[in-house]
């Protein structure tokens, strides 16, 4: 009997506002505990929340980007529960009327097929603080710096059928929120994290199985592992005659397992009700129009454009549009080198990507600027250097030699390609003269030896001879 996996994700994206969602305190990460918590964040008596309009703009941006409806009127509600890092005893969130509802996201699977994932809703809410259990013997420390940080909770439909699909969806979202510049996407700092709702059912079953919610997954790897573990757990449970119970489970990365946090019966009754301190959030048509005008080119549109404008394959276009910064870098290389896009794509996706990866750097941190790379690519195109020599030039640029200037490096290292036919002919003659045995064998039918001669000529030219000319001349002389 085969099983179908059903997954829905709730992603919490921390909005990249400078101040908190309901107070003027800064949102910067990593400050000393409680230095970024003002009286509103501390929930002192008499203080009141005031909505940060920037958070609304970001939510609207997201809504428009996923083709969702941005509600002209949405409502902030209080979610009531007691916890030491929840200063007011309630979290301000949106419940019945979220700001964004009914959007879609297109994901691409590894085999190239595409799938549309429904986004049920996205709502604005405030984050809680942090409880610090390690540093205080017998006590729990409370850090309220994070309290009041704006979050966009993005809830998907249960449309994903494997951990791979879930990851593809999450990565797509991760890329989109960064494209929109509404979230820095930093998963280590918790700026982008997710809860996964996982259930299984027999293939063909009409009803969904009972789901478990896995909390607070803060890396793609953990999401994948946690889902796979949970799917296996549920299948084994059912196949051995057990029943899945609706519950919240926690993923333990060290043990790679999920374990029960609380069952449905133990769940809080959050007593949601509209927050009387805040008026309903009204999004005017004009405002929405303005946000729409400010929208950047979205990843799917950009990918399509890269395919048509630059003649790139779908794969290349996908890779290059995975982040807005990478796409911008690539386009700058193309534009300033005025060279063939495919050549530029190969360099950005090849040598550059490899070195970035090796050094764990983002494209924005690349020591080689797009302008410098463009200049080097131009030298390949105009035959100043060969593609092979270019690899040496690129490494020197990466190391910062000559301030990354390709021409300076080529000049200083004497890497300029030899294209003078006379000079190359001389080298060819030398090689032929020095290897009479091989010449005889070649002429006797050992065609494979042609590569040997090319290699020898390149060697004596220290790689600088134009390979095409070397080929031509060798052929002429050997076959003569």
């Amino acid at each position, binding site marked *: 009997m085969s099983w179908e996996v059903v997954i829905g994700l709730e992603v919490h994206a921390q909005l990249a506002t400078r101040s908190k969602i309901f107070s003027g305190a800064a949102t910067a990460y990593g400050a000393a505990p409680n230095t970024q918590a003002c*009286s509103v964040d*501390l*929930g*002192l*008596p*008499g*203080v*009141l*929340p*005031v*909505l940060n309009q920037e958070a609304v703009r970001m939510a609207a941006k997201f809504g428009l980007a996923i083709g969702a409806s941005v509600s002209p009127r949405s409502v902030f509600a*209080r979610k*009531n529960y*007691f916890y*030491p890092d929840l*200063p*007011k*005893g*309630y979290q301000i969130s949106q419940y019945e009327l979220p700001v964004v509802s009914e959007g879609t996201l297109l994901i691409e699977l590894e085999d190239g097929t595409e799938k549309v994932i429904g986004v049920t809703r996205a709502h604005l809410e405030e984050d809680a603080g942090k409880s610090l259990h390690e540093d205080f013997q017998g006590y*729990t420390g*409370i850090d309220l710096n994070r309290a009041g940080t704006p979050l966009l909770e993005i809830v998907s439909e249960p449309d994903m059928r494997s951990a791979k699909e879930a990851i593809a969806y999450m990565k797509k979202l991760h890329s989109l929120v960064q494209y929109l510049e509404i979230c820095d996407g930093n998963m280590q700092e918790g700026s982008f994290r997710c809860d996964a709702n996982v259930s299984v059912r027999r293939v063909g079953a009409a009803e969904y199985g009972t789901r478990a919610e896995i909390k607070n997954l803060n890396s793609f790897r953990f999401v994948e592992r946690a889902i796979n573990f949970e799917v296996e757990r549920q299948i084994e449970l059912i196949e051995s005659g057990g029943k899945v119970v609706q519950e919240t489970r926690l993923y333990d990365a060290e043990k790679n397992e999920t374990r029960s946090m609380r069952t449905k019966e133990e769940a809080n*009754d959050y*007593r*949601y*009700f509209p927050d*009387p*301190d*805040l*008026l309903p959030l009204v999004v005017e048509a004009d405002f929405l129009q303005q946000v729409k005008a400010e929208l950047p080119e979205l990843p799917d549109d950009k990918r399509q454009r890269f395919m048509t404008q630059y003649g790139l394959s779908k794969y290349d276009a996908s890779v290059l549009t995975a982040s807005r910064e990478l796409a911008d870098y690539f386009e700058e290389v193309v534009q300033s080198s005025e060279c063939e896009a495919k050549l530029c794509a190969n360099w950005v996706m090849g040598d550059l990507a490899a070195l970035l990866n090796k050094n764990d750097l983002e494209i924005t941190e690349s020591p080689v600027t797009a302008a410098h790379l463009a200049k080097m690519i131009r030298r390949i195109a105009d035959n100043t250097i060969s593609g092979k020599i270019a690899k040496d030039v690129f490494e020197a640029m990466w190391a910062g030699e000559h301030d990354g200037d390709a021409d300076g490096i080529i000049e200083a290292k004497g890497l300029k390609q030899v294209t003078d036919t006379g000079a190359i002919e001389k080298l060819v003659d030398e090689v032929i003269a020095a290897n009479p045995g091989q010449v005889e064998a070649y002429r006797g039918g050992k065609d494979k030896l042609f590569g040997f001669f090319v290699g020898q000529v390149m060697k004596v030219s220290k790689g600088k001879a134009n390979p095409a000319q070397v080929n031509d001349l060798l052929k002429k002389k050997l076959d003569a």
Partner: protein
Amino acid sequence: MHTKSLTELSQGLRNREFSSVELTQHFLDRIKRYDGQLNSFITVTEEVALAQAKAADELLQAGNPSSPLTGIPLAHKDIFCTNGIKTSCGSKMLDNFVAPYDAHVVSKGQAAGLVMLGKTNMDEFAMGSSNETSYFGAVKNPWDVQAVPGGSSGGSAAAVAARLAPMATGTDTGGSIRQPAALCGITGLKPTYGLVSRFGMIAFASSLDQGGPMAASAEDAALMLNAMVGFDPRDSTSLEREAEDYTAQLNNSIEGLKIGVPSAFFSEGLDPRVAAVVEAAIKEYEAAGATVQDVTLPNNHLSVPAYYIIAPAECSSNLARYDGVRFGYRCDKPKDLIDLYKRSRAEGFGSEVKRRIMVGTYALSAGYYDAYYLKAQQIRRLISEDFKQAFSEVDVIMGPVSPTPAFNLGEKTDDPVTMYLSDIYTISINLAGVPAMSIPAGFVDNRPVGLQLIGNYFSEAKLLNIAHQYQQRTDWHAKVPAAFA
């Protein structure tokens, strides 16, 4: 000096008949002398008061007072946060709480050059109609110390009635300015919801809470209101409107004024002696050229049940922050987190507060929310519609404030429902958000009786005009209890 109106005090200060320091000292002396009998203050801020008075005197001497009220003392209900000064909200929970900021009302007062005498006693977290739920002990009614002063702004009402302060701030969630004003024989106004910023005003029921002035007369209340109203970006429900001078219409004629009297306000439960006082006051208006007609508020009888769902629901959430973790009362040696929560709240809150938290928590619970909270919100809309309809027919609605004059201390403490029912005439006003006043209109058994004036949204200046015209023809507002003359 303590029987002078604010206008007289203002003139006296400008004419150098007395200084602000002298005036302030006079009231501080009266507080020292009399408040032992009344318990109307939780904190007297003598040093602050004298320093502010000195600063006001300098402004006055320089001929540069910041407002007509510069140099005149006032008292703040202890629900308004005061920077560096204890703000208890009448609760053990906040007995140790010193706010690091001023409420908007407090800073506006300071900007106007007002002098703060201290913080007045109140029902715990403004929950009560008799001022008996205060952790700091009950307040006594200056007209009869056996009687309650009303609540929750009972300390402010008693202090003004006994002339321990020329004016005091109050807050009104279901009648907490008007009912103590009525029971203590002073003038109190609850403005339109959103007119006075709630920033720094400790929340009871956010959608109903509104600060307002309590003073001897309508003219004083108008002057004081000028110093309280103003848009505040820190309160999302604060209304951005053009500034208005609430004294501007005081002397307008009320000839042809259309008064609506809802028969529902004169039904069962109203003390006939109170009814007689109210009817006499309305007759006085007729004598001044007003006409009286019947208006219906068909859903008024639903206001008490709706209010006692909405207010506790909001309070149950608003008071969740008092958990013993960051500030306020914390129980001794908690075993664990749950013990810390349970004991801090059990020991820090009084029984009325706990009762309302429990009622509100229940009303918001899954499975009950629709039947209680949502239903109450629907009733609230109906009540607002009733007022809109009524104000399409009349200029003002008049009636009693409280069904009885001040009752005796301890008389109703064991019977919360009877206590709640005494709010029947005041609660619908908060549910609708319209402004209303209480003005002194007579006595029953030497205990004051108030007349309630209810106006349409933003009709404060008109209400003050109507009240002032009555006070020009009567002197109930000028009476001071003999023991505090």
